[in-house]
């Protein structure tokens, strides 16, 4: 037990969600006779869920800031149809199509952000309106038809890395990505050890570092192997690469930059943030704006993958994204959540969906199971908090240190109390 603690730092519960994910994969591996971990299936998994995970990146920031965005599915659909139409009617090249999509996403985000941040309307209402508005706009401009997109454009949603270099029997670029990831892991571990020495903090025993690295690298290499050994012409898919870049970028922004700090501060205590000089309205505006840009991107990737934009693209995506974020440990009240946690939450949902499908479970049961999993994850989290134990989901990152105060968690009656200054 102690060994596991040292291996993963802090409380073993912190990694409960990762273990749940691993357990889920192993369970389906057993139930489906090994189908879930075949190259074709993991490639499908990434292609089929990357756009939801991209939405979850934006959504976790929105939720940390204490808001919600219900419009993402409709915004994605609207951006998708406009991009498909402009490319078809004006003959825009694929890259200009992407620019049009991102700009349109930003404009929509500015519109919604304006009402949320500067007019002070709850995001729930503004984005509920946006959900109707942009769904209608999609169907109005697309005349409820399906608009195809060019093969060039399809690359961002269904593309693969090229086959280059010597014939190794693997996709060489995928191998390269895997090796870069392994190198980054080793470099990161070395760097943190060096830093700990420099700061005079406690240095983890060497065996902990090594064991951890071995486990992580083995996982990365195995996944690399899976992606590199698919059917000829396939590799780690392009949407997966886009997602990976976004996770790294947003993970960094949320944890390490001033704007990231401001988002947590505004969500944690808006008044305290404002009195510390945080421009809370601007923060709200940017978070909502960013969400719509990412929704636009997700819409384009989906359109590219399905070769065409249609009137019912993106229906229900907001719910998948929100579920991923909450399974990933974010708090409804704001101030808590991480990008990486949301990715794991999203992957749990994706693996569940995929695995049940492979087992031949119908969509009725799949929905019931997904609903129960969402509820169970949050119930377990809340229960842990109320017991004064650190929440295992919420504590996946050290950022959330302050949540496990026993007094705060148990003294519910006082929390609802009010003091009204006359």
């Amino acid at each position, binding site marked *: 037990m102690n060994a596991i603690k040292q291996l993963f730092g802090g409380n073993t519960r912190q990694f409960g969600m990762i273990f749940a994910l691993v357990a889920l994969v192993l369970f389906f591996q057993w139930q489906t006779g090994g189908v879930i971990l075949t190259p074709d299936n993991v490639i499908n998994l990434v292609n089929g869920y990357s756009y939801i995970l991209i939405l979850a990146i934006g959504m976790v920031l929105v939720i940390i800031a204490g808001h919600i965005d219900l419009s993402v599915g409709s915004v994605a659909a609207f951006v998708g149809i406009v991009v498909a139409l402009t490319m078809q009617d004006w003959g825009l090249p694929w890259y200009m199509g992407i620019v049009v999509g991102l700009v349109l996403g930003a404009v929509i985000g500015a519109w919604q952000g304006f009402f949320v941040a500067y007019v002070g309307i709850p995001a729930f209402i503004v984005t509920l309106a946006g959900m109707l508005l942009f769904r209608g706009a999609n169907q109005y401009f697309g005349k409820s038809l399906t608009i195809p997109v060019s093969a060039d454009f399809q690359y961002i949603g269904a593309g693969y890395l090229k086959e280059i270099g010597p014939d190794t029997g693997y996709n060489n670029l995928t191998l390269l990505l895997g090796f870069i990831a392994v190198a980054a892991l080793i470099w990161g571990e070395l760097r943190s050890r060096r830093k700990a020495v420099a700061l005079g903090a406690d240095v983890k025993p060497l065996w902990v570092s090594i064991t951890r690295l071995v486990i992580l690298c083995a996982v990365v290499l195995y996944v690399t192997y899976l992606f590199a050994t698919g059917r000829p012409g396939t590799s780690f898919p392009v949407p997966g690469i886009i997602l990976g870049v976004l996770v790294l970028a947003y993970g960094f922004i949320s944890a390490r930059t001033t704007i990231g700090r401001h988002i*947590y501060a505004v969500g944690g*205590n808006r008044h*305290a943030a404002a009195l*510390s000089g945080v*421009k809370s309205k601007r923060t709200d505006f940017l978070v909502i704006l960013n969400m719509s840009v990412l929704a636009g991107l997700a819409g384009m990737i989906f359109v590219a993958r399905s070769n065409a934009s249609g009137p019912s693209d993106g229906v229900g995506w907001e719910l998948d994204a929100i579920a991923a974020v909450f399974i990933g440990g974010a708090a409804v009240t704001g101030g808590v959540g991480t990008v990486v946690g949301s990715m794991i939450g999203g992957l749990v949902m994706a693996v569940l969906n995929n695995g049940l499908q492979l087992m031949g479970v119908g969509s009725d049961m799949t929905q019931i199971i997904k609903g129960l999993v969402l509820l169970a994850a949050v119930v377990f989290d809340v229960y842990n908090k109320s017991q004064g134990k650190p929440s295992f989901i919420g504590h996946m990152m050290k950022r959330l240190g302050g949540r496990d105060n026993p007094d705060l968690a148990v003294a519910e009656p006082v929390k609802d*109390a009010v*003091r*009204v200054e006359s």
Partner: protein
Amino acid sequence: MPSANPIILQMRSITKEFPGVKALSDVSIAVRAGEIHSICGENGAGKSTLMKVLSGVYPFGSYGGEIVFQNEVCEFKDIRASENAGIAIIHQELALIPELSVMENIFLGNEPTRFGVINWAEARLRSVELMARVGLDEDPDTPVKEIGVGKQQLVEIAKALNKSVKLLILDEPTAALNESDSQHLLDLIRGLKGKGISCIMISHKLNEIEQVSDSITIIRDGKTIETLDVKADGVDEDRIIKGMVGRTLESRFPDHTPQIGEVFFEVRNWTVAHPQIADRLVCKNSSFNVRRGEIVGFAGLMGAGRTELARSLFGRSYGNYVSGQIIKDGKEITLRNVPEAIRHGLGYVTEDRKTLGLNLLDDIKTTTVAANLPAISKHTVVDLDKEYAVAEQYRRQLRTKTPSVDEGVAKLSGGNQQKVVLAKWMFTDPDLLILDEPTRGIDVGAKYEIYGIIQALASQGKGVIVISSELPELLGISDRIYTIFEGAITGVLNKDQASQESLMKRMTAVKKSA
């Protein structure tokens, strides 16, 4: 005589553990019928935890020890169970619904019904009677948000009386009240005592405790230290403090020789309107100045407009600016928002630490740097090593009691939280620091340290404004004291001229001293 009365409540060897912390290790207390029993102890000593055990917030089974109330062993599983037994607790943060009327609040959760339908006629009659008993002169239909904090406190007591309470627990009842409201409340508690209702009171205001208590139990580090009989033992404030801190405090204020320079900050004819009601002025034509190295006190009753003045100066974070000038270092400056105020060297520590001052989800190090992120970041990327180093430096300098700066601020005691907030503002290196009730809810030992910090800031040549409801505190640390009454500055007294009486006169009788 209370000392002859039978014992109504006995808590024996109460222990309560939280993961990693033993909040109560062995606390026993005995309360007699019809007495006012105060519980004293520094923050974190376990007073509130003990009261939560007693009132069933922590259910039976989650603590060790035994509770005997009215000769029956009690095993409360929730608050409702303790209320049914006749124990009511009034928390520091009032549990009232602001939108509901006084009457609705009194009967909330306990509505008189006939066949499941609320009998408002009876509720009205009974609420008028209850309001008369607590001396609350208001229309029962007035929404609670429209009456002052003092009266809200009375509504809480009326609510408790309605439940035929035998033992009333008051947690810091006067913390947010002004002098006259406090006095009224204390009189009321004494009146209830005459009617056979016992009362347990937790308060940091030792003068009040000394004034109303029959006996005092002192708790330190989760253990009962002693129980004092106020009259028989001749207890005074110093005696209580000695028990609380385990030693005699030589002085309540550190030594300080002010080195006062020239005027560097001046406010002229500052007028601000209420944020919602345009024709109601919360600051009227106020002018004052602060000199380098000076600690300037602001005295005024609750609601006199002290906080409103401070916050409107601090980047117009309260109210609507009407007119007035701010002159700093000889130049007029305009502070339209908080970032501008911070840039011009102002800092403001709020009176309401938990709702306005701290993000309770944050840890110490992120809080310490929160108001000055640019100083530890490069191209907006925060340097985590610098952050740690800065937080660690202030932790040592201010002697914040915490295992590490990675700890969450929610876990800290009030005094240590306040040190973290002070560190946050010290890190912005302000020229003028405005401290609004800097020692509210902080125990005696920590207060002394906070005063030391304030004096050290002044010695560095900074100007410090201290707003406080506690006149002894202002008299102890200020070099000069302004008085405020109904939004207007009514006078200024030097340290050597000021006394509680002379200040109080200017805080209440505006015409004589203006």
